[in-house]
């Protein structure tokens, strides 16, 4: 039964997502604009610049998507949800919808940046894996933190303050991984993947434990 | 008494030799780095307790005002 509910909630999330597709288009436009500005100032960036550009874009899009996912139905439907659904189901549905969105955005951004600035990535499967894991990490983190900051009055500012320090473990290992995928020399990267996975598991575990408490408010 | 004499002698050494602070910190096996660390911790805790006392005074005042 739970799975049935879960499916319904997820499909509901996707419908909403689709209805708000202008927001997604706006984010793509944002990626294109930032990339073009970089193109004007660097024309042929080093992997270092490329990497920071890519993850900067992902970071801000993730922040936006995370806030959006919760603020969208704050209000009447929020109460409705609270009565009907197990908070955990909602939590996972949110994560999945934000994750999908970030994945779409990540690969589109990769494509866009490649077209405009060129592609320094050597190990493409590894970079794809990094995008998948990294966006999962960002999605979990922002879903969880926006649930916290939703409880306060000025949640946009607070979300930024709360999330940036905690982002560091995720971002550091992600940037390390994408660097490895851009170097010609093969480097062992299982460590970074383990750390990234561990942080994601930690965040999800925390979510399972703490999200119901937050939702009660 | 002995301690203050000691402090005075440090002052004298610094003034008479006009030794830069950096060299002073590195003298005697850099022991002054440890002393500074202890002083920082001490001052930090005292400052914290001072703030706490202010808070308690405020509460006392609230009680008296009733």
């Amino acid at each position, binding site marked *: 039964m739970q799975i049935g509910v879960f499916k319904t909630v997820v499909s509901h999330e996707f419908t909403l997502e689709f209805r708000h597709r202008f927001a997604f288009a706006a984010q793509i436009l944002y990626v294109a604009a930032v990339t073009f500005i970089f193109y004007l100032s660097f024309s042929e960036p080093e992997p270092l610049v490329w990497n920071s550009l890519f993850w900067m874009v992902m970071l801000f899009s993730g922040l936006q998507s995370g806030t959006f996912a919760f603020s969208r139905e704050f209000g009447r439907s929020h109460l409705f949800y609270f009565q009907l659904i197990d908070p955990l189901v909602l939590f996972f549905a949110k994560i999945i919808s934000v994750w999908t969105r970030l994945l779409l955005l990540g690969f589109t951004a990769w494509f866009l940046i490649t077209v405009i600035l060129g592609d320094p990535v050597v190990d493409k499967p590894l970079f794809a894996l990094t995008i998948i894991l990294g966006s999962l990490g960002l999605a979990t983190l922002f879903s969880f933190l926006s649930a916290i900051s939703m409880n306060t009055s000025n949640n946009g500012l607070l979300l930024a303050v709360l999330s940036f320090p905690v982002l560091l473990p995720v971002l550091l290992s992600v940037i390390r991984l994408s660097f490895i995928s851009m170097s010609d020399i093969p480097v062992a990267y299982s460590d970074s993947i383990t750390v990234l996975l561990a942080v994601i598991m*930690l965040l999800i575990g925390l979510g399972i434990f703490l999200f119901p408490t937050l939702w009660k408010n | 008494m002995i301690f203050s004499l000691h402090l005075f002698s440090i002052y004298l050494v610094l003034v008479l030799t006009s030794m830069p602070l950096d060299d002073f910190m590195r003298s005697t096996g850099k022991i002054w780095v440890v002393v500074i660390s202890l002083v920082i911790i001490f001052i930090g805790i005292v400052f914290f307790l001072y703030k706490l006392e202010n808070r308690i005074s405020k509460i006392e005042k609230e009680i008296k005002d009733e």
Partner: protein
Amino acid sequence: MNGFKKNWYKYLAVVLLLYAIVFGMLVPLRPGIMKVDTFRAELGQDLTLGIDFYNTRLTETTDQRVWLRIDNQHTLLAENTEVVHDRKLIAGFSIPETTPFSKKTLSVSVIVDSKMEGSMVLPDAMVIVVGEGAEINDSQWTQSPIEQLSMRWRYAFPWRNILEETIRNTYFHVPMWFGMMILFLLSSVNGIRLVRSDRSVFESRVFSLNLVGTLFGILGILTGAVWAKYTWGTFWSGDIKQDMSAVTLLIFLAYFLLRSSMTPGKKRNRVTAVYTIFAFLASIPLLYIIPRMEPSLHPGSGGNPGFGGEDLDNTMRMVFYPAVLGWTLMGYWISNLVFRTLEVHKLIEDKNYD
């Protein structure tokens, strides 16, 4: 007697801290070599090497033996030694014309052994430049192996070259971080109890423990910066562990921001408790996992074994663990004061509303 049952940990804190400060400051360092006055020599040269020592009494015996050491097999014994004063020695070597390896330079450690002071090492003290076309022959380098080193145990802290006396900071800087983590752990435990029971007593506990934990963290950063200035060269050297501990502090400062941005009540209690647990768990990878993967100046990084082993010998352990416990109990004591202040304040406010 009743008071003692309630206050035992405060007495313990005082005794342990007194012990840590007195012994941590007064136990001497083992003798060691501070520096040599020549950094570069050539093959075939007659070398007079002045060696400066720390904490030695060289004038009391005259049995000092000095070696230059390339590796375990290749060493050179000084032909004569002359004691200048208690902490200075001049050793004369005649460096052979031949080189044991076909390298351009040979990195040499200086080893001094005396019955009175034990054996002392200055690693990578100098280099010997090998000229063009030097004959490769190690027979002259193997005649005087290092043997019969005197081992002397004494109640003293180890000598480390750049650290020198600052090794004592282990009892004041490091316990700040240990204490901080223990206080944050306690506050997370109280956070869990708060989430379970919804009683606001635990909120005061969480707040006071976080406050003192953050104080310890700030003191740890400050003492660490001073220590770094006189050992690594700058107050902030961009070391990964320095950066990550600053981030940990930011996470907990955000807790106070979060707490002050909400109105008091059950909702705030729950949200801040959840954030505390979250922050504590997030700080573990920051302080204990990521720094180990990156190169760092701190011990226990770049795949090295963690704190302990080489950096903490048994003499230091005897002071270090009591120091950690003492500072932690001290922190708990202070947090208890904050806690009681908060509770009293709450009592008065409740009365006012009635």
